[in-house]
């Protein structure tokens, strides 16, 4: 075997994968720091600084051409940069809002932050993968960190229980996912995504192995993005996990899993056979998520079902099977990340020691808007955006995924989407109604006063304002949407050049 020049491209590869390398190194530094100093004050801010640095790198890298790095295992630039920005932003926001929250619930350990950073590194691998190996490694790095984070509050029965559920079902779905990889490998003879079309064109493998493999592969993704009927872990896990980390799970991990799904269908599967499956799953997901969310009185659980519903909207864009649909889905993920991190951030700030807040019952939060105006106003932004009201980002996002689906002939799916998102207004606006238009109950007053005594932390306020502001900017200047379309022509050109 000739290995001459095996490391020739290592330097430029490491440069291209700056965010990944930075996060991994910073994660290790955080572990070392935590072991030697046991000082959890500085640790989260190292992570925030690294994420911000990585975001600025990716912003500069994004307009450049997409390249394959590490022997074609991963992509860098363009599409990958955009996905990395979503993940890194979610990471930075989560680290910043977690500090105060974890302090209050008494579980502020250095490990938490390094686990978040490691999970993000896994997500970056997943979201820019060009090989099923990297998809698997990224997915598992992310998942294992998330299992631990879910069970962070070991002393709470609910937290451990949700960790167990998440772990068992996650491992179960990983089994199917891996089996899908094996079948696809048997059918195409390669694990590289962009080599699959050529292998299929050569007539290799049998139809059953191929499509069985694709189906099982989808299961893994659909589980991670909590699409129906693979969603059932979501409400239980989201309710049990620490609130800020729930926000992180519901956004960054979904974004990267969706990004990988788009990479798979865009690079590896030119045929249209999978469109119907995704369309049906999308319809089921939207209906189930929105309808059950209406019946919830616990805000965290309601937001969990809402995040299921939003996975459905993203799937609509992907099911369209066009580059416009993929770029719409990407844009939606960006918007969704901002609004969901924000919504969970508000709920985390409203969770306080005392009977009322911990239950996260909607009615216990009556009239909070006037007492904590920043939380009330920013929650207004997030809820309106989640509902899809103009001029906020959520509206543009819905447009971005629904319009390509109509072009692709999936009108029935879009009608389902529009009807269910109209129904979603009921439960989102009910939150605002309770926040602003309802007077608090007498018995809740002492607990509320206790909450008022603890001021909002600076970092939380900044994150909420930034999220709300970005939603408004994306809603008023949706130019970003057009730029996401470019990734696909870019990548396609790059693929063509390599072939």
């Amino acid at each position, binding site marked *: 075997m000739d290995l001459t020049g095996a490391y020739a491209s290592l330097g430029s590869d490491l440069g291209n994968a700056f965010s990944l390398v930075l996060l991994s190194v910073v994660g290790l530094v955080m572990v070392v720091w935590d072991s030697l100093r046991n000082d959890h004050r500085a640790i989260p801010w190292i992570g925030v600084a690294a994420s911000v640095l990585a975001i600025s790198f990716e912003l500069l890298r994004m307009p450049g051409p997409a390249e394959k790095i590490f022997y074609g295992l991963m992509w860098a630039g363009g599409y990958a940069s955009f996905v990395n920005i979503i993940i890194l932003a979610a990471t930075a926001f989560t680290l910043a809002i977690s500090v105060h929250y974890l302090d209050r619930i008494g579980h502020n350990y250095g490990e938490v932050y390094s686990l978040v950073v490691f999970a993000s590194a896994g997500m970056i691998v997943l979201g820019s993968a060009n090989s099923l190996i990297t998809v698997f490694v990224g997915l598992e790095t992310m998942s294992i960190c998330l299992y631990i984070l879910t069970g962070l509050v070991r002393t709470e029965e609910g937290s451990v229980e949700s960790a167990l559920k998440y772990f068992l079902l996650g491992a179960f779905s990983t089994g199917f996912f891996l089996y899908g990889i094996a079948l696809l490998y048997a059918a195409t003879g390669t694990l590289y995504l962009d080599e699959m079309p050529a292998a299929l064109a050569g007539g290799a493998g049998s139809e059953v192995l191929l499509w069985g493999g694709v189906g099982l592969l989808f299961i893994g993704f659909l589980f991670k993005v909590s699409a129906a009927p693979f969603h059932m872990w979501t409400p239980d896990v989201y309710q049990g996990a620490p609130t800020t980390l729930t926000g992180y799970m519901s956004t960054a991990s979904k974004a990267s899993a969706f990004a990988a799904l788009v990479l798979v269908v865009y690079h590896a599967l030119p045929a249209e056979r999978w469109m119907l499956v995704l369309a049906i799953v999308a319809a089921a997901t939207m209906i189930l998520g929105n*309808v059950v969310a209406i019946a919830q009185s616990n805000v965290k659980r309601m937001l969990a079902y809402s995040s299921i519903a939003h996975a459905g909207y993203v799937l609509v864009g992907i099911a369209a099977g066009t580059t416009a649909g993929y770029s719409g889905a990407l844009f939606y993920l960006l918007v969704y990340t901002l609004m969901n991190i924000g919504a969970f951030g508000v709920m985390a700030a409203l969770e306080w020691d005392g009977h009322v807040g911990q239950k996260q019952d909607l009615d216990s939060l009556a009239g909070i808007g006037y007492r904590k105006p920043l939380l009330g106003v920013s929650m207004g932004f997030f809820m309106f955006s989640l509902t899809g009201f103009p001029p906020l980002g959520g509206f543009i996002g819905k447009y971005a995924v629904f319009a390509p689906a109509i072009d692709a002939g999936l009108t029935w799916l879009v009608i389902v989407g529009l009807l269910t998102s109209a129904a979603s207004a009921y439960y989102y606006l009910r939150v605002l109604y309770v926040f602003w238009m309802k007077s608090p109950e007498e018995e809740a007053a002492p607990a509320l006063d206790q909450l008022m005594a603890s001021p909002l932390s600076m970092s939380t306020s900044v994150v909420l304002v930034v999220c709300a502001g970005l939603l408004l900017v994306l809603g008023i200047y949706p130019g970003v949407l057009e730029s996401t379309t470019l990734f696909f022509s870019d990548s396609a050109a790059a693929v063509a050049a390599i072939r």
Partner: protein
Amino acid sequence: MNSDFLVQWILLLPLAGAVLNGLGGLFLPALRERESLFGIVGTAVVAIPFVLTLILFLQYSGEAHVTTFYTWMAAGDLDVSFAYRIDELSLIMTLVVTGVGALIHLYSVGYMHGDPGYWRFFAYLNLFIFAMLNLVLGDNLPVLFLGWEGVGLCSYLLIGFWYTDLKNSAAANKAFIVNRIGDFAFLMAMFVLFKELGALDFGTILADPQALSQSNLNWVVLLLFIGATGKSAQIPLFIWLPDAMAGPTPVSALIHAATMVTSGLYLLARVSPLVLAAPQVMAVIAIIGALTAIMAATIAITQNDIKRVLAYSTVSQLGFMFMATGVGAFFVAIFHVFTHAFFKACLFLGSGSVIHGMHHVEHELHKKGHEGHIDPQDMRTMGNLRKYMPATSTTYLLSTLAIAGIPLFSGFFSKDEILFKAFEYGYSGNTYAWFVWIVGIITALLTAIYMVRSYVLTFRGKERWPMADEVQPHESPWTMTVPLWILSSLAVVGGFVGLPGVIAHGEWNWIHHWLGAPYGGPVAEPVLPAHGGGFLAIEWGLILLGSAIAIGGVWFGWRAYDRHGLDYDRKISEATGRLYGLWRGKYYWDEIYDRLVVQPLIRGSEKLLAPFDEYVVDGIVNGVGHVTRGAGQVLRYLQTGRVQNYALAIVFGVAVVLGIILFG
């Protein structure tokens, strides 16, 4: 001055006011006590745009001017820009919105004094002005729709302003839900237009009505009209407006009388070339308008709540305007919008002043240990207020005469023009217009009667509240009376902008020349056959008839109620028998909706599903909501909490996915 610059500030100032008042009040609780600050900011950000609009108006060259700030979304065919159109129609609407708006803001400074939500009120009101300006200035349907939704939202927030009272919240919800039905029709119309024409800006869609097939055109106009019935309170969607009186009175004056409720008329006038090309739909519009007008007028006669009388009067007057629209007289509809804005705003503000006074009475009575509770809005406890509130009384009387259509007052010119146009349209061979005309004549008579009734019961006769010799109301502060005086003077002279055709052959009908398409304006008109020389005599005859009806109505009402007071209601009720019950019961619209739509939905879902206790609110969408909620209640029980059931679901999903992908 550069008109782009002016338009920009006309729009931005109210928005800035809303943001400043809202954020300032929210985040700086210490500031909330300083009412004058919010009042001054709130009023100035509407008054300055009024001045800017005046400048625009005076330097208007006769050419429509479109200002595009930036393109919001451009994807494929769809191009949505923040573009605003300055032309004759939008200018006149902007003048009304900012002018009347500024006066009402000024009035609110006094009216809302002492309310803990003072800052919130001005923030909402400013936001409303911003949304309304988007509605009237927008150059394409999406921007118009943005404003349309915005005013709906502000209306919701302001009706439910005193949200601690559950009744107000219910009224706000009702308005919101009913309006959503209209909005849905509006959206459908936009969808059809976009699908057929590929554009939504007025320049393109109005360029050629023939670009649409006749059936599509009919649908578009009908759907837009349904949208208009929601916002402008026509049959069958008018039921929210009387309940909307739960909001503070300046809100009723601004939103539910002068501006927002006329937006349906504005919309139809804006797309008048399309409407004219759909004559069948025009007939529907005219007949609905006529029926609404007479129905609301008959209800108004029986009401005792001063604001409800005015609310039904508004519904009735809006019916008049739709009558005009239905007979192709769009500019007359806008003319009536214009005059109605003055006298109805004045009437509402006057009633607010009265309520202000009666609140004082209630307060004093309470202090003196009086046991009973009086309703400060009930005319039965008022009487002889002109002695205590002379300014309010005079201005209310002037506006009453204006709405009744006494010659030379503003209402006379606009209402008479509507009746004349209906007659002329019928004369030109459109049979339904005769019906409209006759209904219009009767309604005009009823209008004069119920308005005089409300004036006489409130301001004349004897004091009817308890302990009247000890406790008396007093006149409101100047911030409230000044707007009353200004509005009432406008209500008196405002009609001279549209002198009837018999004078100088219509040459002095300024508003016709300003708006009408034959003179280069944006509002289309039907081409009617030329009439013979005798028609001038008919026109004079109609004017005399109109004057006679108005004077007769006022004379009758005055005689009846000044002499007999409240007793006369009983006489009317005896004379009309069962009909009176129907009127008093408001034709049982609410009950019918409840029986036919709301109850079946609720009962159906209750029988099928587990009992749910909360949020049993009336309203059609809430009924649907119950069904959806019910489904949610059932589906959530799939979530058993057992990990192996979830795993089973995954396996089921695997089977489905593989099944579809392998065999599908």
